[in-house]
């Protein structure tokens, strides 16, 4: 008798053959050794399958997953350390073009702000103890947030613990908080701590020996502040004497008084009155800037229109619409302007410029017609591909599950959106509320890394989606990655803000999947306790 097909034997082993056919198979098996071997192997295979399936996946997968995660953290850490070392190196002038930190003035403003954060953070070293507390709070709060969707009991316990910690940590900061519709600090009043005010109208005529953080509709600072001033208000008036720096956001910002260090402002209207003086640098952006006071060092301005009648000790850098300098304006160093048209810079006679005058004409040229645009895109693509390749090679499980997680439901994009929006807010709050500048900078660093990796994860996922398969081999994964990255690179360039929207959506999906999977690595140990 001829042998049966392998399919028949498979059904036979599953005990699913009709009785009469099964008995024919049995009869054949009694005579055919080859088929006996096949059936025995099929039985062993079935048992093996049942055994493999019976064991829960995470119990075995977890240590490996955790190991991969630790490798990932180590690699990110090393890369971060390497970058910061690189940043600290000073390149020879003729190699300066290699330095990615030597970018446009726009980006300079951001770095200057970061620089300020670092510098301003020097006096915060004393607060390391408070920082440790802050880190604990952040960890507990973060952990609580992670547990939020899972266990209500643990969530409640976590919240209680977090509140308790908050209560312990904040008094250590020497922070005084005032709130109300009108908060007035009288001329005779002296506050030895950092003062936080939250009110509709804030009138500060007294003395603050720490920092002043104020938020309201109208904030007038007429007294003395020994530390820095952070103001977020519709109208800001700085009349007094500030011995630190001023950081202000507002619709109108008016400065009559003295700022011993730097002035950073972002406002619709900024006015430096003739009596005002900024002891160091000024970086400012807005629609309408009026500079009649004195800036002892350099002024960097981004504005639609700017009128300068005051003094700038060193360089004046302007980027934007129109700049008007009229006597008695005086610039000790260079006057550097970036404008659309040279006629937009109006230098009245009698204005003194100590150094040279440079006017750069900025062209609104389509980025697609520039060669370096394509070069950068290619570099971005290659770099992203390399990072993805390293990830596939180093941490295949982690990479695989994150990129798979990108397309699983709405949890990823929603979580990603929350992280995308909340992290910058948390960083700003962290930087301002003294919980810890280092922590804020670290968070910012991780945020940046997360954003970068998000695109790679989404690229890998997109590639698999397009190829319509779950890649099993490394080769297929790599192919999917490069395909996805190419699609993303092109999609990001779609004009009329479509590309930007795609970019943001990509961030949401990628960040969400990334964060969720990091959480998945930790969670098993948490749930077994709970």
């Amino acid at each position, binding site marked *: 008798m001829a042998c049966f*097909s*392998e*399919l028949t*034997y*498979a*059904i036979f082993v*599953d005990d*699913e053959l009709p009785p009469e056919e099964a008995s024919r198979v049995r009869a054949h098996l009694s005579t055919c050794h080859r088929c006996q*071997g*096949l059936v025995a*192997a*099929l039985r*062993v*295979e*079935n048992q*093996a*399958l*049942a*055994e*493999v*399936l*019976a*064991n*829960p*996946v*995470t119990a*075995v*997968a977890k240590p*490996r997953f955790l190991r991969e995660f630790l490798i990932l953290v180590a690699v990110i850490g090393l890369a971060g350390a390497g970058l910061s070392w690189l940043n600290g190196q000073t390149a020879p002038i003729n190699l300066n073009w290699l330095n990615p930190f030597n970018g446009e003035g726009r980006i300079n403003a951001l770095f200057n702000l970061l620089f300020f954060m670092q510098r301003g953070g020097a006096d915060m070293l004393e607060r390391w103890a408070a920082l440790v507390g802050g880190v604990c709070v952040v960890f507990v709060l973060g952990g609580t947030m992670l547990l939020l969707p899972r266990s209500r009991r643990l969530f409640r316990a976590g919240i209680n613990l977090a509140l308790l910690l908050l209560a312990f940590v904040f008094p250590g900061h020497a922070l005084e908080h005032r709130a109300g519709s009108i908060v007035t600090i009288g001329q005779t009043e002296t506050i030895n701590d950092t003062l936080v005010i939250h009110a509709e109208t804030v009138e500060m005529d007294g003395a603050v020996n720490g920092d002043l953080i104020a938020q309201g509709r109208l904030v007038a600072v007429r007294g003395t502040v020994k530390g820095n001033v952070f103001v977020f208000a519709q109208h800001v008036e700085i009349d007094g004497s500030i011995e630190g720096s001023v950081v202000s956001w507002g619709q109108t910002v008016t400065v009559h008084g003295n700022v011993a260090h730097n002035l950073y402002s972002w406002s619709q209207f900024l006015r430096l009155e003739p009596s005002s003086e900024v002891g160091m640098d000024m970086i400012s952006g807005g629609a309408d800037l009026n500079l009649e006071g004195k800036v002892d060092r350099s002024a960097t301005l981004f504005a639609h229109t700017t009128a300068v009648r005051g003094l700038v000790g060193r360089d004046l850098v302007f980027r934007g619409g129109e700049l008007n300098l009229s006597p008695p304006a005086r610039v000790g160093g260079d006057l550097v302007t970036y404008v659309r048209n040279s006629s937009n810079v109006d230098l009245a006679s009698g204005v003194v410029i100590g150094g040279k005058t440079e006017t750069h004409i900025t062209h609104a040229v389509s980025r697609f017609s520039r060669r370096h645009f394509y070069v950068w895109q290619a570099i971005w693509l290659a770099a992203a591909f390399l990072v993805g390749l390293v990830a596939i090679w180093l941490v295949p*499980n982690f990479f695989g599950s994150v990129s*798979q*997680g990108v397309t*699983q*439901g709405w*949890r990823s994009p929603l979580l990603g959106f929350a992280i995308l929006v909340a992290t910058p807010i948390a960083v700003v709050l962290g930087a301002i509320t003294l919980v810890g500048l280092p922590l804020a900078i670290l968070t910012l660093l991780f945020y940046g890394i997360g954003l970068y990796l998000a695109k790679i994860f989404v690229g890998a996922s997109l590639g698999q989606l397009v190829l319509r*398969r*779950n890649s*099993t*081999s*490394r*080769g297929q994964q790599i192919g999917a990655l490069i395909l996805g990255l190419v699609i993303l690179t092109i999609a990001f360039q779609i004009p009329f803000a479509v590309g930007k929207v795609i970019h943001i959506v990509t961030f949401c999906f990628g960040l969400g999947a990334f964060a*969720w999977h990091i959480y*998945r690595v930790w969670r098993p140990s948490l749930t077994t306790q709970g």
Partner: protein
Amino acid sequence: MRLEESGSQRSRMETLDLETVLGLARGGDEQAMGELHRRFARRVQGLCRHLLRSAESAEDASSEVFMRMARMFASYDDSMPFERWLFSIASHHCIDLLRKQQRERRWLEDEDVETLSVAIAADSPLNELIREERREEVREAIARLPEKFRVPLALRYYGEFSYDQIAQQLHLTRANVATLVFRAKQELRQALMAHGRI
């Protein structure tokens, strides 16, 4: 006080046999329902995980299954083992979910089964890997199988459903199911062989 009471009730519940717990649950005892969850959650979650391929969706699905169990409890009679009954709720739910995702609308492709006799069971890499205690690799390969293979495979060898039961759940013929289960194993062998090469 109340906490202690419920604690002792729970430990009492743990000592009861399944029949008694089922009887209590039928009478609307919430403690008994909780006990059923405690005993079967792991198994149900395992089935959901194999079907849905993701641990988090499996958890969600599993809690939904137990909610359905509570609602449908009145319809359970002793004609089939309780776990089997629970498994059929779970597999129905997961298959519904998979259908909704519509990732792979077709459960069958028109390929001829017999032409794909590349991997013969006799030297199945599966057995070899299991012998070598490399179950993890097998498990990963199963998770990576396309849905149309993974689902019947998990229903057959984890859920221990018969071909007929699987056919009913997937709206297929019995012959289709036999073919899919067979093909699933072939695909798995191939995937494992390819994996071994890399």
